[in-house]
């Protein structure tokens, strides 16, 4: 059995060092909070601009300026709707989606034309697909295929070479491609209903 003294000293030591480190960490966390938050916001803004077919590259300041100039954010029944306004006329909507990919959830943004008759663009913000295979959904050539696709009530996105196909799948990543197509198609159906209900 350890004597009483040998218990108190270590506990005090541990307590002291814990307090020391916790306060240092708390300080660092507090002082970088706003920067981290800003970085996350910036990513969302880039993504929204991208799906609305606008310039989404450039420095953080440029992105912020462009976003604040043209995009208004509205909370509709708990869903954030990003609306692009040009000279007082709505020219597009962007909404966030989440869906089941092959290995984990895929989330991002989809842009629509103001009357929800076509998809303006699709972007992926986070996913856990295999790098080099399904992970290639991040590549520009794949995402650019989703530009200006007319919305269909049932199946908007169809993989080539099926009849009426409009998207090239990714070689070696059939399941990820299918998952993405399903997510987008389902999201379009949901959004049409949502838009009607919310009267966008």
């Amino acid at each position, binding site marked *: 059995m350890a004597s009483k003294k*040998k218990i108190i000293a*270590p506990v005090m*030591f*541990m307590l002291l060092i814990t307090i020391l480190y916790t306060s240092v960490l708390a300080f660092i966390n507090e002082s970088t909070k706003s920067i*981290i938050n800003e*970085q996350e916001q910036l990513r969302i803004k880039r993504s929204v601009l991208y799906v609305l077919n606008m310039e989404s590259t450039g420095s953080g300041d440029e992105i912020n300026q462009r976003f604040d100039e043209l995009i208004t954010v509205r909370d509709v029944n708990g869903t954030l709707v990003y609306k692009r306004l040009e000279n007082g006329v709505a020219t597009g909507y962007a909404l966030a989606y989440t869906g089941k990919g092959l290995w984990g959830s895929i989330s991002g943004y989809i842009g629509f034309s103001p009357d929800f008759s076509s998809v303006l663009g699709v972007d992926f913000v*986070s996913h856990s697909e295999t*790098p*080099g295979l399904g992970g290639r959904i991040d590549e520009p050539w794949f995402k650019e295929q989703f530009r200006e696709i007319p919305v269909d009530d049932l199946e908007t996105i169809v993989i080539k070479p099926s009849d009426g196909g409009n998207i090239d799948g990714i070689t070696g990543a059939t399941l990820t491609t299918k998952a993405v197509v399903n997510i987008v198609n389902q999201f379009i159906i949901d959004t049409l209903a949502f838009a009607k209900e919310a009267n966008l």
Partner: protein
Amino acid sequence: MNEIIRVFKAGIYKDNPVFRQILGICSSLAVTNFLANSFVMGVGLMFVTAFSSLTVSVIRQFTPKHIRMMVQTLIISAYVIILDIFLKAYFPAMSKNLGPYVGLIITNCIIMGRAEAFAQNNKPFISFFDGLIMGLGYTLVLMSVAFVRELLGFGSLFGIQVLGDNWVNWTLMIMPPGAFFMIGIVIWVTSKWFPKEEEKGGAKA
């Protein structure tokens, strides 16, 4: 000076954490599909190992022996969290690429191994150096594995395409099995290059 050279040799090849001590294998397998990821991971580990070894060494005389592991873990996690916050704030893209592996540096046996085997019994400066060099040894192995994997798997180095259009990406290399093959080859080759002098070795995990 002699001690510095000895520590240096130990970290780079004689007692290299990855191919000699077989520590830190999990992250070596996970982040080596891109050179850039491996580089940041390696630098991160160097930072954490160096500073936690330094701290452990500075307080080694005041630390009650029977709670030293608790103290070490606390110190290591603190530095890892600092690193994680730093990456999130200033390199968000890299933070996203490395995903949970930054946080998992806490459980990287190399750091605890160095704290226990070296920093606990040595002066602060040499402990700091030991941590740095052990991290460097880890980084070098990661970079060489990533070099082959990224080159064969994507045809690129640091994200810059180096192999021409007629190069067909060898997808296996960037998937987990590719990492196992490469680490196996590294361990095999290095054990031929640097044969063990005698079977006593350094720290065992």
